[in-house]
């Protein structure tokens, strides 16, 4: 692999360009007209403008990205996360054009992207799943009948959903119909599909996900878990590894399930298996993310493995250089997402020019970002502008370090959620590690 086109923007594009550069691989950035001054555009060896600001006409435009790849002579595409990263049609196009897609093959993405199919695969492989409907649901009446069978509370979900769209929690049969119709409407608007499914709503769960790596030769390892229970409206805010809720025993059990899941799916490259963990220790497979995750740095910190480089090596056809025995989780890492938004104004995005900024550093402090002094954040894309990751020997030290580092962050000219994050990391429940996915909602009340 000599030259990689990065079909993404922001900090993840920068992260990938850096990994490539370290590996001696040339990079091609693609950018929209709004991202002419973006860091990834500047940092890559070459940069190609692929269209107007709207992502549908640039970062989501498959044909243009394929054309840019051909024109630049790149032999592979790294899709990052979001945008086209989990689009099986895009992966298929790459295959058809003899371009290496850095990720699993298109068939795997398609199979795992359909939640019902993914679930069936997991059931067949003996991976525990949340009790729920076995078939697609299209009408409220049908759904209501099924809900009675599964038992309330119920979660309504979109078959092709993601990012919290098309999801509704229902606690009583009376609210079911209205909730179902709203969720279905949302799904239709977002995904042009009205396939829904239902499942038992696990109360007070933790979101535990396992990072796996799988090569083309059937070797699969897991790199431990990430606890992503601190979420607002299904959007993760803080992630850490290891999880304070897992015993060695449970970790081994869940890790085994994750490896089994990846094998059952015939998975290659880096992937993440998401579980819901109930307070009583039962865990259920939720979904598999077929891409690199935003929160991948915490796993890198505790395992010492560079996940982006591992992705590139696997895509290039290299076998894994380690086995499960070689993976050791050392210390504790926490990631905190910094968004350009105003928590006091309903988390309204806050685009604008960064007048001045100072970011912390020191041992065990890592910052992944694409902003710089004088950079203008446009309103077109995701509001996440930086990730602050800390590593220390244990959880307490890591929290102390995170608190100290967050306190140093200065970003002038726009609103950010830094103070809000500071509030979370100093909250007694977070410090004690007794949070669940409902934590943010609870403290906002």
């Amino acid at each position: 692999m000599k030259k990689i086109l990065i079909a993404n923007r922001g900090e993840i594009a920068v992260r990938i360009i850096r990994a490539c550069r370290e590996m001696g691989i040339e990079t091609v950035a693609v950018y929209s007209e709004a991202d002419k001054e973006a860091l990834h555009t500047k940092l890559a060896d070459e940069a190609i403008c692929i269209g107007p600001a709207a992502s549908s006409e640039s970062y989501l435009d498959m044909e243009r990205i394929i054309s840019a790849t051909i024109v630049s002579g790149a032999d592979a595409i790294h899709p990052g996360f979001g945008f086209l990263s989990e689009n099986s049609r895009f992966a298929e196009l790459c295959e058809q054009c003899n371009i290496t897609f850095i990720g699993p093959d298109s068939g795997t993405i398609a199979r795992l992207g359909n939640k019902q199919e993914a679930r069936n695969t997991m059931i067949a492989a003996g991976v525990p799943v949340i009790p729920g409907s076995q078939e697609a649901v299209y009408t409220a009446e049908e759904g209501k009948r099924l809900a009675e069978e599964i038992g309330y509370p119920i979660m309504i979900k979109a078959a092709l959903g993601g990012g919290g769209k098309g999801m509704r929690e229902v606690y009583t049969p009376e609210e079911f119909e209205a909730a179902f119709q709203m969720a279905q409407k949302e799904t239709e608007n977002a995904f042009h599909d009205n396939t829904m499914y239902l499942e038992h709503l696990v109360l007070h769960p933790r979101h535990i996900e396992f990072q796996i790596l799988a090569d083309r030769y059937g070797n699969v390892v897991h790199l431990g878990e990430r606890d992503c229970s601190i979420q607002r409206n299904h959007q993760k805010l803080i992630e850490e590894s290891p999880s304070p809720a897992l015993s060695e025993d449970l970790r081994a059990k869940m890790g085994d399930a994750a490896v089994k899941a990846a094998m059952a799916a015939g998975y290659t490259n880096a992937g993440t298996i998401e579980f819901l963990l109930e307070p009583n220790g039962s865990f259920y497979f939720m979904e598999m993310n077929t891409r690199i995750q935003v929160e991948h740095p915490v796993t890198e910190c505790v395992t010492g493995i560079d996940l982006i480089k591992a992705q590139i090596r696997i895509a290039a056809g290299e076998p894994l250089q380690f086995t499960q025995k070689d993976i050791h989780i050392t210390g504790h890492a926490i990631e905190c997402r910094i968004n350009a938004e105003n928590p006091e104004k309903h988390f309204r995005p806050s685009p604008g020019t960064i007048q001045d900024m100072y970011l912390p550093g020191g041992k065990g402090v890592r910052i992944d970002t694409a902003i710089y002094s004088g950079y203008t954040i446009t309103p077109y894309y995701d509001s996440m502008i930086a990730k602050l990751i800390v590593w220390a020997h244990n959880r307490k030290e890591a929290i102390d370090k995170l608190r100290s580092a967050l306190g140093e962050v200065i970003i002038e000219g726009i609103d950010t959620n830094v103070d809000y994050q500071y509030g979370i990391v100093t909250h007694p429940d977070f410090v004690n590690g007794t949070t669940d996915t409902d934590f943010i909602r609870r403290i906002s009340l």
Partner: protein
Amino acid sequence: MKLDNMFKKNRGTSMKRIAHRQTGPEVPEGLMRKCNQCGKAIIAEEAEQGYYICPKCGGYFHVPAYRRLDMILDEGSFQEWNETMPEQNPMEYRGYPEKLAAMKARTGLDEAVVTGKGSIHGTETVIGVCDGRFLMASMGENVGEKIACAVERATEEQLPVILFCCSGGARMQEGITSLMQMAKTSAALKRHSDAGLLYISVLTDPTTGGVTASFAMLGDIILAEPGALIGFAGPRVIEQTIRQKLPKGFQRAEFLLEHGFLDAIVERSRMRKVLGDLLQMHGKAAWEEQSQKVAESKVSEDRTEKSHVSVQKKEAWDRVLLSRKKDRPVGSDYIQALFTNFQEFHGDRLYGDDPAIIGGIASFGERTVTVIAQEKGSSTRENIQRNFAMPKPDGYRKALRLMKQAEKFHRPVICFVDTPGAFCGIEAEERGQGEAIARNIYEMSALKVPILTVIIGEGGSGGALALATSDEVWMLENAIYSILSPEGFASILWKDSTKAKEAAKVMKLTSDCLKEQGIVDNVISEPEGFTRENLYLVTGPMEEEIKRFLNQYGNMLEEELTEHRYQRFRKM
């Protein structure tokens, strides 16, 4: 400090290296194509698997005939007729047989039109689809023959006809024989229509020349795809002749809709559903069976009286103000509340489409009815767009066209009147406002299907009567119906328009007075503070009344019906 400078020291020297690879990435042949409208690269399969629409700009590609049949008909229902035709070369035009042979080989088609029988949502229909890839779907003897045969067979089998038109016009290589196809196809369609059968033409890009001047424009219902070029003379010919640049959008479907020649523009994704609904609503037994059903259902006889009893006492002027109130429900609200599956038909087929009048067909229970309403719109912007429901001649001519269509298909007509009066303006007079109103009254008086009119707001003079020469005229409690507005009355008789309040009193324009005089047959009571929110309180009882009306008049013989209507006005 420039960021570029900072990163320079990081750059590898490898940049200058030129990649020489044997099996490097490349786009396989046919995977992508360029949209001929937006010019962007698209994945060919993505367009072809769907509706042949550019996923980027929404532009329409031309659809091959058999793909079109797949999109429209129930799976496996198509039976092709006249698959192969003997080759024609009436002028013995040199090179024509070779050209035809090449076309056949290239497209896999025998001629530029495919005809046969199929079904949509289970309703059988004859269908013909032109394919522009075959000599621009020009009409020669075989095209004309296939269409004429299909239409004749439809007449014989009592089936509707749907033709998807697309053509460059007559086929030059066949000379005058081509011209005669216009007469042949049109004549076959006339017989089909006289047999009381439905013909829907769907105009796709481009429909021009002799096809436009024959079967394309003869549909009972004419639909078109968005943006389709439709015209008699091609735009290039016109430009060369008049030596002027044509305006943007000239001869496009939207232009024709505005000029009254299309019933509707239908997107490709909705076409099958719309055609299926239209066929079903024109089902053979739609009228007879339904009238029987209504006859069987008991409708209480005393409802007329009851609804009259609850009419409250009010000053005439208060009723005038209420009838004009801004939040009072308008025509489209009634259509929505009383009917389902409303299919709006536009245009008078002469000059324009008047937004002050909306009309079309809709389902009332299981029966199909023609619905026509004067429409004020419900916001200031809509008021302006709809010209405050003051129709131009085009509006009345559209209404009459729809009534004549109702007569052909034996379905009752229900009109909602709500107009300050017919539009008073230069272009209205130029196009014959008086003639249009007169023609409506004249034709309505002898229309062979039941007509019901409900005055829901203002019943302004001749502008109202042009939709109210009916078997029964009903009024909402606070609607008004008069020879002139009270302001106009005061100004003409008393030379003082400020005396409108007094005028309203003497004009006897309110529902109670008109009922007493026998001008209206039925008064429907309104709730206090009548708005869209509580419209159901009015439409609920109205629905029952309409059932009663359809029951009573639907079972009358045609002569009885027209005689009754004649006498209703004769005695006034």
